[in-house]
C-alpha cells in the first residue's frame, strides 16, 4: 500500500518545512502549499488523504478552502485538520461549521497532532500510515 499523502497548507514557511520533515520521518508522503488557492488546486489534483490547513492564508482563507473541499463529493470524506492561531470560540465554531474534522491551535503539541493525524488516516478505508524505518 502506498504511504498516506498529507497536504500542508500554511504560509509560514519555517513551520511547513519542519512539519513536513516530521511527517516524512513518520512515513507519510507530504505535499505543501503556501496559499489558499494553491492548497485548493493541489488538493484537487493530488487527492491527499488528509489536509492540514491554516486559516489566515494569502489569496483564499482556510475556512473557504475547507468549505470548497467539503462541499465537493470527491473530498467530503478527506479529513481536514485546521491548524491556526485563531483561538476565539467563534473561529473554532466557524471551522467546525465549514466541515473541519479537528481544530488545533498554534502553538500545538506536535505529538498530539501526530496522533490525531494517525487516527484520522487509520479511519480512512484506503490508506494506513507507513511506519518509519
Amino acid at each position, binding site marked *: 500500500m502506498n504511504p498516506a499523502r498529507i497536504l500542508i497548507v500554511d504560509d*509560514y514557511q519555517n513551520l511547513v518545512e519542519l512539519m513536513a*520533515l516530521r511527517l516524512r520521518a513518520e512515513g507519510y508522503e507530504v505535499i505543501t502549499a503556501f496559499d489558499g488557492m494553491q492548497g485548493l488546486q493541489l488538493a484537487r489534483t493530488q487527492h491527499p488523504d488528509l489536509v492540514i490547513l491554516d486559516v489566515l492564508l494569502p489569496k483564499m482563507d482556510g475556512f473557504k478552502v475547507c468549505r470548497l473541499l467539503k462541499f465537493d463529493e470527491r473530498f467530503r470524506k478527506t479529513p481536514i485538520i485546521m491548524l491556526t*492561531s485563531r*483561538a476565539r470560540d467563534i473561529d473554532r465554531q466557524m471551522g467546525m461549521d465549514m466541515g473541519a474534522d479537528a481544530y488545533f491551535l498554534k502553538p500545538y503539541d506536535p505529538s498530539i497532532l501526530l496522533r490525531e493525524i494517525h487516527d484520522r488516516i487509520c479511519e480512512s478505508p484506503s490508506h494506513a500510515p507507513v511506519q518509519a524505518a
Partner: protein
Amino acid sequence: MTAAMSNSTEFEFDHTLPAGPDILEDIVALVPDWKHLIAQLDETIIHVDVFDSVSALTPSAGQLLCTTPAVKSTLDEVVSSLGADFLTLLDKARRQPPKKVRGTLQDSQGRFFEVTARNVISDHGLSLGVFFILHDLTKYHVQQQKISTFVSMVAHELLNPMAPIMEGLNLIADEQMGTLNDVQRHCLAVVAEETSRLARLVNDLLDISRFDCGKIQIQRIPVDVPRLLSSAVNNVSARAVAKGISIEIKYHELSADLFGDHERLRQVIINLLENAIKYSAPGKQIVLSVLSRKDHINISVKDQGFGMARRDIPRLFERFTQLNYPDHIRNRGQGSGLGLAIVHEIVKLHRGKIKVFSELNQGSEFIVVLPKRRKGRLS
C-alpha cells in the same frame, strides 16, 4: 468546611455596592429645595421618583437627553435615549434600598456610561426616588479597545513563531535527527518547558484582552460533569504526578444540572487545579468535587497546601499577583500570573461567584458557585 478553615472571602459579581455615606442622601434629607440644588451640580444626575416621573435633572443630564432641566422628561424619553437597561437598573435599585447598584449603559449615540443608581430612603422609611449618577466612559472605552486590539495583534505575532519552535524542538527531542546524550536531552526539556510557558502566557494575555473587549461569549448548555472533570484532571495530571500529588474526583448524580460553557469551565477547573498543585507540598492530596444545591452548583477545588494569609485573599484575582511566599514555594517560572484573573472573568460571565477559604499551612478551598438554570430561561 472545617472550623480551622474559617478565613473566608467571597467574590460576588452582582454589581451591587454596599451602602455608604452619600452626599445625595444628605442633600435630599436636609435641604427642602433639593431639586433646585441638584440642578446646580456639574455631575450627570437623573432622578426618577416613585411615580416613574423624571423629576430632576442636572444640566449635563439634560444635555445628554437633549433637553433642559426646565423641560420635564418622561421615563420613556430617558429609556429611548439610554436603552432598556436603564429600567433594569431602576428596578434593581428599587428592590434593594439603600444599596448602590452599578451598571453600564450605552446611549443611542454609542456613548458608554458607568451608572450608579441608588434608591434613597427617608428617615420615615419612605422612598425618595432613585438617583442615577452617570459617568461618561466613552473615551476610556475607545482607548481600552485600542489597547486590547494592540495586545491581541502582538500576541498573535508572538504565537506564530512558537509553532515551528515547538515542532523543531520535538523533532530533535524525539531523536529523529540523531541520538542525544543526557545533557542535550535535559537542555531541550528545559527549552521546551519554557517555550510552553511562554505560549501559555501569550494565550492567557490574549484571553484577558478578549475579556476586556467583551469579545468572549459563553454558551449555556448542559455540561457533561464527569467528562468535564476528567478532562480537566487529565490536562494537569502530568504536573501532579511529577510532584507526587494525587487528585480525587467526587461528584453526585444531581450535579448533572450544570449549565454553562464546557470549554471555559474546563479552563476554570484547570487553572484552579494548577494553582492547587503549585502551592502544595509533594505527596499532598487535592479534591475536586461538584455538589448540587437547591439553586446552584458548587465546583470545589480543595488542597492541603500552604494556604494564604487573610490579607492576601482579596488580591488573589488581580492580574499578575504574586503572593509573599518564600521562593521555594513560589517557584518562579510556573504559571502566567493570569490564571485566577481568567477564572474570575469566566465565573463572572456565568453570573456565578467564587468563595475562597484559606488559612496559612492549613490549605485552601476555592468554590465556584454557578446558578442553576431557572425554569423557562437560562440564568
